[in-house]
């Protein structure tokens, strides 16, 4: 068949597919089921035209046109999958704590952060001059000013709710952004995440140590106690997620670097999302409970409660999967893998 003749025969099909594409693009629901069937058929026919373009010696612009038409229809036919809430809940509540329980990066990050934090706390407490040397006079003055006043008369009722909302929103946006940046920085061979983690641990430790030598120690402790468990854990988690990404580039376990990174990305994102949730919780506590005139016992109770919640999540939910995990994993033979895929999935109740 001559190219021209072929073109004339097919042009109407392509035009029809194009018009259906245009309607689908406007709204996925604008086509009736019959029209959708036609769309799929036209798409396959156009695919076949493209495959035979060389055999029919179609001119170059037509081939280019066909490439773009097939690509366009392909993207409308095969669409992105949406979030499924149930799937995400299962990931967050069951699979994630089990993975984190065995995550060497989380252990390393937690050890590094809390170790450095305690060390700098002791140093900052023993040598109060160090805080000034490290942070500068202005910063230290500002800190002291912030905690000069207590929280006994910080308003009540509606204005308190409003102030809390403003504060919480600022903390959410500021702290979570730091967490996200710490996570992204981890991609740089893990160095970025390590730097952020170390920096935060040392600065926080020194500040904590220094403030405890000043007359404002009481006010300071009143403020930081309630939200500390969530916030510190969230920092550690985001750094660990970033390190997971960054070190996947170095430790590839036999995969290509790109594949190793992709796999790490899949595992690291839920960790980061968990960290974001913790930042959110910390911000709400920091906005409402920490600066409130509540007695210290209540704030300490909030801290203990949130620490217990974290312990439950990481240890109890993490251990829960341990029994399953501990059964020896042996290499499956090809026959077994094929058998497993052939046999229908066991019915779940």
């Amino acid at each position, binding site marked *: 068949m*001559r*190219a*021209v*003749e*072929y*073109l*004339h*025969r*097919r*042009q*109407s*099909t392509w035009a*029809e597919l194009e018009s*259906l594409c245009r309607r689908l693009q406007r709204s996925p629901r604008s086509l009736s089921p019959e*029209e959708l069937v*036609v769309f799929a*058929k036209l798409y*396959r*026919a156009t*695919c*076949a*035209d493209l495959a035979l373009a060389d055999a029919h*010696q179609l*001119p*170059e*612009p*037509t081939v*280019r*046109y*066909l490439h*773009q038409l*097939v*690509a366009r229809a*392909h*993207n409308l036919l*095969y*669409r*992105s*999958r*949406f*979030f499924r809430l149930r799937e995400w809940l299962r990931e967050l509540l069951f699979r994630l704590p089990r993975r984190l329980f065995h995550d060497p990066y989380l252990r390393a990050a937690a050890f590094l952060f809390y170790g450095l934090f305690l060390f700098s706390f002791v140093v900052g407490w023993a040598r109060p001059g160090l805080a000034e040397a490290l942070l500068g006079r202005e910063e230290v003055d500002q800190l002291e000013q912030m905690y000069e006043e207590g929280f006994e008369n910080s308003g009540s009722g509606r*204005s308190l709710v*409003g102030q809390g*909302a*403003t504060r919480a*929103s*600022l903390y*959410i*946006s500021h702290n*979570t*952004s730091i967490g*996200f940046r710490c996570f*992204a*920085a981890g*991609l740089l061979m893990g160095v970025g995440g390590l730097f952020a983690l170390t920096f935060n641990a040392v600065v926080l430790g020194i500040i904590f140590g220094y403030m405890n030598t000043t007359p404002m120690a009481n006010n300071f402790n009143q403020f930081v106690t309630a939200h500390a468990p969530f916030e510190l854990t969230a920092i550690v988690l985001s750094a660990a997620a970033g390190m997971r*990404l960054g070190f996947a580039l170095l430790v590839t376990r036999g995969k290509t670097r790109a594949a190793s*990174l*992709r796999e790490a*990305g899949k595992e690291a*994102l839920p960790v980061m999302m968990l960290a974001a949730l913790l930042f959110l919780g910390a911000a709400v506590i920091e906005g409402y409970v920490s600066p409130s005139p509540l007695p210290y016992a209540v704030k300490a109770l909030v801290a203990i409660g949130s620490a217990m919640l974290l312990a439950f999540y990481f240890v109890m939910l993490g251990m829960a999967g341990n029994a399953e995990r501990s059964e020896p994993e042996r290499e499956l033979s090809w026959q077994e893998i094929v058998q497993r895929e052939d046999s229908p999935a066991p019915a779940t109740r």
Partner: protein
Amino acid sequence: MGFPFFRVTIENMPLDTSIRVLTPENIAFEYRLAGPFQRLGAYLLDLLVRGLVIFLFCCTYSLLVTASRGGLQFLGIAPITILAFLLDWFYGGVFETFWNGQTPGKWALGLRVVTVEGQPINGLQAVLRNLLRAADAMPVAVAITFPVSISLPTFMLGLLVASCNRRFQRLGDLATGTMVICETRETAQGTLRIEDPQVIQLAENLMAVATLPRSTIRAIAAYVQRRGFFGPGRCREIASPLAEVLIRRWELPPETDPDLLLLAVYYRHFWYEEAQSAGAGTESPVPTPPQHAVPAHGRIPAEAVPPVLGKHL
């Protein structure tokens, strides 16, 4: 094969920025990759959209606060801060999940994010590649520190990484296995109809066109379709290497115009027989495209499908 210089063109890897994708139908089609600067345009458009959204929200929010006579005042700037935070980190991720790999900026410029296999991306990939933009934006220059700190992402790292791989992937793309492609809207199709009598006259005498290899025909077709962009002198220069060989082989008069000769070959190959039969008024005129709308019963009329394709339907 007497035309060694044309063998290089199609058989080898494409030199341009197109990428081959295999569909589930086992058809390979080509995407054009979007370069870093096309993507910069989409990013700036998205920034504009984000700014507009915040601006409009601020306007309506302040109106609401005024209208409620201070009833909403206790919330302060909290809603605006939260919105800015959400737009900052999740704008791209949410749009790319629900708009099939496009944000408003990408949609406006005809770009789309797909996986490296050419499949649509999922929510995890969309969110992760947008969170990791913070790594690509490095190093971040701090432009103004007072009254609010405004930082200027330079995207140097992303640019460096993108220019080091074949698919222009930035770090976020590498971590999720995605790439950004260009969905061009091309309407040009079909062959050019040539009506120059000189060409037609010359074409009458070219009996040997059928012996030309396919790749040569393709090269000539590419030349004819693009010759409108060049002046006559340049056309002669481009056409002469091939035309000289043809003139020598077919023993044509040596003063034949190279441009005219290639046009004649094109005409002979794509149009000659149809023009003959149409001129003679015989039973097979140039078939006019059959007109049909989408039939309600969901079948394509048989004549729209050539026999070789029938089994694909």
